[in-house]
């Protein structure tokens, strides 16, 4: 480049991983603490953090959005077909701006958002995330490369994936706002892989995610991959999201008293 560039590193002053632990983060919704939550905004993807929760609350109302996947809550797993994308999948590809008139907190429009998930992917993706004339995906796990969800702050992005029926995203790394929104809404579980698995898995492979063991197993290839731990987002996830976390810590009044 024309401009001269000097890069001085203040090496290990702060060496935490920039990608993962990130912005405070995850807030997963557990239906137990906040039974009045609309399942449309807070859908437990995995009741790991609320094993005694009344699954019925969330899962029956959301039954239609769990197509191919089997959610084994007792062993903390996600199981289903995967859809593989590359690096820098931005929010315009996940949900193009023309569909942002749909309001995620409106149940009918939530469903509609789901039907457009990943519709912005270039036509080079011959196999589409949602097949023509379908409104749900058959892929419950999205596997991506680096910087998944970059771009806009639109919460419509994780909502669209979740509403389409995706349960988890496994990427090499995430853009900050997408990661936080995923956790805040509980729409998809954002996991990070240690290896670059988007180049080793193919769309349509059958995979299982073992959360307890931080493992992704590709049954089609027989390979196993290590996942990174969720990081310091843990407390918020365990509380069940930012609203539940705030209630638990006394920041806002409890709903259930």
């Amino acid at each position, binding site marked *: 480049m024309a401009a*001269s560039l000097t890069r001085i590193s*203040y090496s290990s002053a702060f060496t935490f991983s920039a990608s993962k632990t990130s912005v*405070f983060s995850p807030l997963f919704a557990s239906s137990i603490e906040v039974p009045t939550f609309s399942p449309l905004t807070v859908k437990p993807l995995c009741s790991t953090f609320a094993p005694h929760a009344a699954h019925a609350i969330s899962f029956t109302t959301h039954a239609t959005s769990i197509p191919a996947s089997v959610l084994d809550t007792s062993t903390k797993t996600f199981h289903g077909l995967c859809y593989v994308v590359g690096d*820098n999948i931005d929010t315009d590809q996940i949900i193009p701006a023309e569909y942002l008139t749909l309001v995620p907190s409106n149940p009918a429009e939530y469903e509609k958002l789901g039907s457009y998930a990943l519709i*912005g992917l270039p036509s080079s993706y011959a196999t589409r995330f949602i097949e023509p004339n379908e409104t749900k995906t058959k892929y419950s796990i999205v596997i991506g490369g680096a*910087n998944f969800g970059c771009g806009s702050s639109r919460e419509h992005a994780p909502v669209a994936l979740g509403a389409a029926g995706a349960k988890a995203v496994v990427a090499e*790394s995430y853009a*900050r706002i997408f990661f936080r929104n995923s956790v805040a809404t509980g729409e998809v579980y954002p996991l990070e892989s240690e290896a670059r698995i988007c180049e080793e898995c193919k769309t349509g492979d059958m995979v299982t995610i073992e959360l307890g063991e931080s493992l992704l197993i590709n049954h089609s290839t027989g390979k196993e991959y290590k996942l990174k731990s969720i990081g310091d987002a843990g407390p918020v996830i365990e509380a069940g999201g930012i609203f539940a976390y705030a209630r638990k810590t006394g920041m*806002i009044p409890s709903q259930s008293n």
Partner: protein
Amino acid sequence: MASSLASPSPTSSFIRNKKDLGFSAFPSTSQIAIQKCKKQISKKIVSVMAPQQSERKPATTGSVKTGMTMTEKILAKASEKPQLSPGDNVWVNVDILMTHDVCGPGSIGIFKKEFGQNAKWLNSLTVYYHSVLKVWDREKIVIIPDHYIFTSDERANRNVDILRDFCTEQNIKYFYDIKDLSNFKANPDYKGVCHVALAQEGHCRPGEVLLGTDSHTCTAGAFGQFATGIGNTDAGFVLGTGKLLLKVPPTLRFVMDGEMPPYLLAKDLILQIIGEISVAGATYKAMEFVGTTVESLNMEERMTLCNMVVEAGGKNGVVPADSTTFKYLEGKTSLPYEPVYSDAQASYLSEYRFDISKLEPLVAKPHSPDNRALARECKDVKIDRVYIGSCTGGKTEDFLAAAKVFLASGKKVKVPTFLVPATQKVWLDLYTLPVPGSGGKTCSQIFEEAGCDTPASPSCGACLGGPKDTYARMNEPKVCVSTTNRNFPGRMGHKEGQIYLASPYTAAASALTGYVTDPREFLQ
């Protein structure tokens, strides 16, 4: 609330405040609630007789053991802590929450759903609560319809109606409404692009925390404040509480020195930086811009610099406030503010130095903002259109820059050139401000002589595509040179469209030749 002045008892004040605050008040049992309560009391006092922020303990006083960056200091002040380090998770008091027509309705939906339950419960227990759910502070929420305005899309129109109903119900002080879509000038309250409107209307102040449901909220960092984009759920939380849990980011420091050549704009600087560190190079990090070049930039140019930090993954961008900042703010805000600055011994994750005098005009080629190239390297790229607009490149200074190129060439554009002023104020400037060296001509006259399209109604326009009938949307796979911020596939409409991000100088020069063009061809 003058009555709270006369109330010596914390208990009764607390209740009164709760009543006033609706559900943003905290339970009386928690320590935080008491702090919040005190804060509210003092706020009521100062709102009558003293600066609003004077109740806050400046993080700079007392025994500071470790130096802090300005981002760390702002968050320390906002979380009422003497010291913060990167990685700390803190509840931060929000000074301004901004939302717009795309994310506002969803944020409002979350707010009502989550806090509405409290309303019922609390009503049954105490008579002090209003039955109507209230936002945390009607004067600290700024609602700006700007994305999908001039469209016949019914859902888009409905979303603006949802904002209006909410603002009426909550008596929101700053709602920049538009009702007559056929003529934006008939809507005196209407502004346009939120990030530019926030600055023009005096909502950006040094040392404060500004959150918005838009990734380009980081633009306001130009004012020496912490500003970042959040989602609907977080915004719903802020609507009710005025607080948000934030993680303190480490800071990357960008030192830009050297005289800015007359053919460069801040857009070139930020494209240089993004090209250097990549679209994920600043993920979760703050980007602090300093140096003599930055000091020489006017406010709108500093806004351009901070606007695109999110394109490098940055959490926020920040420029230290100085006389340029203070001058811009004169007459725009009557609220006191307290600038903060990085300590000399502050720690940075890394530091980058640039000699700007050696930089050349740049573009970001499709389909990534870090796909950097010299404009002159792309001189064989034939283009179909030029777009000048958005929060990044649709400010008054951006149009003045474009006009300067058209004026210098005296020629006509060879491709359709679309102009979308960011706000109504920018639009007015195009029709009233004389362009320096033009003998008194306005931008609009120069644009007309050059054969550009008539400046359109102010809004986000085609920067993000939007509804099919959006002005200048790329409905076909065209090649566009644009002063906007993103060139992802499909960003401006068509998935196979190609967007070259560039400065207003480069965009205007490219319009004149029909190819990606280095503005030095006209500005030498």
